[in-house]
């Protein structure tokens, strides 16, 4: 009886984790890898692996959110993806970020160019800086969560993000000067 109840509770908890974070894992995979096809593969593998270790992760999480653990699984799988296939993230995504607010044509074109430059700049950052920015801006994770996902201290994570933004800013300025 106890085992059945435990199993039912565990399934319910995993259902909640899945519902809450499918989009997070997929967004992370998409921006990390750069195309929808491989992002789907990575997302699928992440959840399959997560379920195999879910009970232990939940036991050891001590009540803390499991999103960093989930993203860490995706992070490790993505690292294997690059190592196995000697790939680099795609500079040009399948379809670049959407400019959501309506604009006139000229503004829209400028906006798209600007966003494309930002995405290209992010893709060209060192792995750890790129990942930190994806977690912060695409997933909305705070420093503590990012630190757990990357296996760093909060202080080191704060510095990492600051440097990533600085490097991106310098790259964008250099791009502006060239145009």
């Amino acid at each position, binding site marked *: 009886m106890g085992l059945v109840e435990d*199993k*039912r509770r*565990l*399934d319910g908890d*995993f*259902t909640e984790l*899945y*519902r809450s974070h*499918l*989009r*997070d894992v*997929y*967004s992370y995979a*998409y*921006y990390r890898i750069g195309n*929808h096809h491989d*992002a*789907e593969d990575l*997302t*699928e593998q992440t*959840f*399959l692996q997560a*379920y*195999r270790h*879910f*009970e232990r992760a939940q036991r050891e999480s001590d009540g803390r959110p499991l999103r960093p653990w989930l993203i860490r699984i995706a992070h490790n799988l993505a690292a294997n993806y690059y190592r196995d296939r000697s790939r680099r993230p795609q500079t040009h995504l399948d379809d*670049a*970020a*959407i*400019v*959501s607010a309506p604009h006139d044509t000229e503004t829209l074109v400028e*906006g798209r160019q*600007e*966003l494309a430059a*930002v*995405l290209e700049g*992010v893709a060209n950052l060192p792995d750890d800086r790129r990942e930190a*920015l*994806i977690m*912060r*801006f*695409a*997933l909305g994770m705070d420093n503590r969560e990012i630190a757990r996902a990357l296996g760093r201290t909060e202080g080191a994570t704060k510095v990492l993000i600051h440097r990533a*933004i*600085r490097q*991106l*800013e310098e790259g*964008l*300025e250099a791009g*502006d000067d060239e145009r």
Partner: protein
Amino acid sequence: MSSIQDVEAMLRSALVPVEPSEALGDRLVRGLSGLTDAAADELADWELSAMRDPRNWGRPAAAAMVGGAAAGALVLARARQQHQRRNTGGLRALERSLRDVSGDIRRRIGR
């Protein structure tokens, strides 16, 4: 381009969350079904004589755990698909799926 704040604003616009496709839900169901089938096969292949050897006791238990885990994940994937098709009755759909998969697992392990 002049400040950190500008770059942060652009990052917020550029790195928008991306919605996964419906097809990904189907793939997850298939992947988890594969785990369930593998666990069921493991149980079917395991003969009673092996029970006399304590070294073998861990294998079927592990298979049952993986099968159960995959079944649970299958439930949630199915439930999510149903939930997306119908906004109402999601909990009933989840209960139905749970019953279906539990029954399936019980049949497979002959209980």
